[in-house]
């Protein structure tokens, strides 16, 4: 047995992959199948699942409603479609903003003196030492009407004799966007840094030698070679932003409801696991579709992972 294992590369591979395979099967594949089954069920009046086969939850999600104002038997209710659309656009905006903030910083760190790089990376990671939820609450303290930002602006306005009414920043889509960008920034900085740091300095020299100025060198050499980092970072940011509900819960209140909040409320408040399951699966499918087209165009950033 041991002898065979020593000789067979494929047996070694199987053994190494076994624990994770079991783990994923028990905790991912089986729950996913259960979710799928539940999503085709119907909620009983006391909040239990009646196992049938109906598409009701899905049609409801995409706007089919029987609860209409003017006595019609059915109509279009955009409530859930709007939530899906909002989640998608927020995830998109967050990702774009995070890239545009993370890239210059990652570039700066990658070009810094090697001795200073570790310190900068350390500083990028420091916020992650604090709990995710606490960090979001900190933003609440900053953004609310009596929060730090309004107080400081108030002082300045007072000093300049300008009338000032505190901004309503909390519980707006902007607050959720700021919170998301803040939470996910490190996950973009690190992969972009890794890919920039790997670029051999002689390539910049080669580009200059062949007649490229700084801008052309960036567009033709730096940017394409750092794309794996941007792609990896995008995957690390876009997917979680699509699903998270804590940031929008705390900073968006009742105003900014995302798919994540919808799912959470279906399970915990509305006690409708069938509708919650359907929403979960739609979220997954949406994320998969976006990721699929994105990675087909730009790859998986596998150069980062492999190297």
């Amino acid at each position, binding site marked *: 047995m041991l002898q065979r294992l020593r000789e067979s590369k494929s047996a070694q591979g199987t053994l190494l992959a076994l624990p994770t395979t079991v783990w994923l099967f028990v905790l991912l594949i089986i729950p996913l199948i259960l979710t799928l089954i539940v999503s085709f069920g119907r909620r009983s009046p006391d909040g239990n699942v009646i196992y049938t086969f109906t598409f009701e939850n899905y049609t409801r999600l995409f706007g089919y409603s029987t609860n209409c104002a003017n006595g019609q038997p059915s109509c279009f209710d955009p409530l859930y479609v709007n939530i899906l659309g909002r989640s998608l656009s927020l995830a998109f905006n967050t990702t774009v903003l995070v890239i545009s903030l993370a890239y210059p910083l990652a570039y700066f760190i990658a070009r810094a003196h090697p001795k200073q790089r570790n310190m900068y990376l350390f500083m990028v990671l420091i916020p992650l030492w604090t709990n995710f939820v606490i960090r979001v609450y900190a933003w609440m303290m900053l953004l609310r009407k009596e929060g730090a930002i309004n107080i400081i602006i108030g002082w300045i306005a007072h000093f300049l004799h300008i009338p000032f009414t505190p901004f309503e920043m909390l519980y707006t889509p902007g607050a959720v966007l700021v919170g998301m960008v803040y939470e996910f920034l490190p996950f973009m900085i690190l992969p972009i840094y890794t890919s920039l740091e790997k670029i051999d300095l002689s390539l910049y020299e080669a580009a*200059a*030698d062949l*007649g490229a100025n700084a801008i052309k060198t960036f567009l033709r*050499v730096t940017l394409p*070679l750092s794309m794996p980092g941007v792609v990896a970072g995008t995957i690390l940011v876009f997917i979680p932003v699509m699903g998270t509900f804590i940031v929008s819960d705390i900073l968006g209140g009742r105003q900014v409801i995302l798919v994540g909040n919808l799912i959470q409320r279906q399970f915990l408040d509305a006690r409708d696991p069938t509708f919650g399951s359907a929403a979960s699966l739609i979220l997954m499918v949406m994320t998969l579709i976006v990721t699929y087209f994105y990675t087909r165009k730009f790859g998986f950033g596998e150069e980062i992972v492999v190297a």
Partner: protein
Amino acid sequence: MTSEFAVEMRDVVKKFITPEGNEMAAVDHVTMQIKNGEFFSMLGSSGCGKTTSLRMVAGFEWPTEGEVYIEGKAMGHTPPFQRKVNTVFQNYALFQHLTVYQNLAFGLEMEGAKEDEIKKRVGRALEMVQLTGMDRRKPKQLSGGQQQRVALARALVKTPDVLLLDEPLGALDLKLRKEMQLELKALQQQLGITFIYVTHDQEEALTMSDRIAVMSKGKIQQLGTPVEIYERPTNKFVADFIGESNFLEGKIKSISQNEASVFVSSINAEVVGLPISKGLVKGEEVIVSIRPEKIHIAEKDAINQNMFRATVTNTVYIGVDTKVFVDVHGAKLKVWEQNRISRLDPKSFYTVGQEVWLMLLPENTIVLRKD
């Protein structure tokens, strides 16, 4: 071509700050003139300033003092992309995200060349380095030798006035390196472009160069043709760095117009009729330098002059040569004997302890000033 010299360095100094905060001159008052169409090498061990000098010509570094001229024009702080020189990098520095064709086209696109012209010139360049048909490959799909050719073609496709090569063959295995040496030399002669070649490999420099600058500690130790450098080194460093030499300490006993006699204390004998360089005076302490392959071993005292009795202490057979180590009155000398006859017969070998006579030919023996 407006200037007689393709590249000229006038009294160039390049200082760097070491991590300890000290100032260090990587290039220390270097002056050299590289003629148009010349194959010029800078030879030295790592840290001698050869690569820094090359990088100042390319424009990657700017001199702290002095000036670099290309085609007679002072370069000042001209950035690399505005210089009519191109570089073949030591690690090739190929763009991994681009195909071979795109790598070659890069420099032409930067010039704003039209697409059909780019196509024509890239095709010609690929043909020149024998890579026709490889244009769609990525650099990673090529062997080391092929990558080296792509790097060469990428620089040459720009038709530079001067091609700078920074140890371009360093990563290749010996056999391929020797082939490429001859190929590069042939290419340079065919194109008539000035090549400035940086290497630490003396054989490579001797094989290819029209002229060589031997460098050490940021300074040029000697500048001359390969023959001059090997046959007439002007100081002990060059004599020691290029090839191998035996050094014997002595004192000039008598001196005439162009000949000197030196008393070599370590072998307690006088060597006569030696050619001398200028400025040496009678009584001066000197070093007598002689190449191991230029010492003749004789069975017995045939001539009286410059023959010394020696004892064989060791012999090493290395195929082409036999290295014979001898002892002359306590001074250790090495003598390379070419194996022109088969050494299968043990009698053709010198045996340890055997008494032999060494003959030094005056024209092969160099008198150097003691540093």
